[in-house]
């Protein structure tokens, strides 16, 4: 029984681990924290593994828990403290991540940067639909909101990403 659970956990980590880390990173902008949040996600999954019989429900569950963990982190004092420090550093003229400067020249980087700037509620639907490749129904179940709301937010999120990119000189994000 335990071996089976371990094997399922290993499979879940192999199939979804990297994607979940990337998903979390779009929220928290820190690889270490993203990895920690994903680890928490897998620990919770292991504890409630008996509830999941189908792999599809596992994926939905993992993404839901990961997003919830990200939300909790963004609401935490730890994150807010880091934000204040970062804002202060920017104000004092420090910063700038040279890697971002290089990446900023690439089209994918601009798209990802636009997604990172999205408000959380739009980022949730956009990432679950496009990145996690969940259906509208699954997104609506995961976020516990009506499908129509998901559609509306998705449309707005795409538009916002498009608008952001247009502002930065890159045309992308039409709703087609």
């Amino acid at each position, binding site marked *: 029984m335990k071996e089976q659970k371990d094997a399922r956990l290993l499979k879940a980590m192999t199939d979804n681990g990297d994607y979940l880390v990337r998903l979390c990173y779009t929220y928290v902008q820190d690889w270490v924290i993203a990895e920690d949040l994903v680890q928490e996600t897998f*620990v919770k999954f292991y504890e409630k593994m008996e509830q999941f019989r189908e792999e599809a429900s596992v994926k939905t569950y993992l993404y839901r828990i990961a997003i919830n963990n990200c939300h909790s982190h963004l609401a935490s004092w730890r994150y807010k403290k880091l934000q204040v420090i970062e804002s202060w550093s920017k104000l004092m003229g420090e910063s700038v991540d040279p890697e971002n400067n290089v990446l900023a020249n690439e089209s994918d980087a601009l798209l990802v940067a636009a997604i990172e700037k999205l408000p959380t509620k739009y980022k949730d639907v956009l990432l679950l639909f496009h990145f996690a*490749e969940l259906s509208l129904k699954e997104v609506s179940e995961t976020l516990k909101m009506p499908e129509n709301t998901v559609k509306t937010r998705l449309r707005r999120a795409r538009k916002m990403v498009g608008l952001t990119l247009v502002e930065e000189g890159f045309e992308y994000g039409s709703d087609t």
Partner: protein
Amino acid sequence: MDQIRNAINNIYKEGKFSDEKQAKTFQRVQPKKRLFFTPLLLTVFVTGCLLIGLNMLLSQHNFESNFQYSSTTSIEIFPEYSGKVKDYRVLKQPWMVAGMVGIIISFFFALFALKKKWLWRVLLSVIIIIAILGNMSERIGYRYYVKDDADILNTLQSGVFAIGNAEDAQLYDTITINQYRFSYFSTNVIRGIVFFKHDGRGYALDFGFLGTEDLMSSIHVPDIRHIFIPLLEGHSIEKLMIQINTKRTEVVVDSNRAQLVAVPYETEVSSSEITIQAYDHEGNVLDLYKPSDIFTYPVN
């Protein structure tokens, strides 16, 4: 492939759930050997230490409760003690008890928060504990013991009463009867009587009766069946007449210095049944004290 998915995977390609992290995840999900008794024993131990410490603190200064006062036993020995000690009896007051309970709860919450690594909550708990402790320690005053006139003057000058310039305090008379000691004093602006009560260790300051009027109230102490009558400096009284019900007692005053006259009586009586009259050298009768001017001590 979806362009957004593609872009994120491309840009974040270094983002991987590492093998090391996977191994750590496996370690975390393994069932741990739980030591059920350790926190329980620790809790019992810490609580025991707190209770024993508190009990020692309180009992060390709590002779009053197991000391039997008696006004009829004249052979009772009342030991003397001098100096001041911390008065922890205030800890028995309801708000102080509430404070101690608050400290204990905060302490255990701080331990819990520390275990959970909620460092902000630990800090908050510590601040709360320090604040309550600080407030409580401020309210723990001193208990003053007096052995002689010098001790009494020192006590008055230590600022226990608002008596103006305490350096001018002058002690007129001190009377000790059984477990009570009364000292009559004055300063430039105030005069009063301080009451000391024996608590098993020594005569400790218990009460102060202060006044600015020329006429001071007399004190009735039913415990030891005595009435104490303060007379002012330069008075013209030669004789005091104390009427208790139908019985009359005369006390001759031998000098006109300020003094405290102690008048004993035998049967139980209430303050309303006492009338005090004074006679001057010409035989004039002065209604010195009416029953309403008589202060009963201890105050119930």
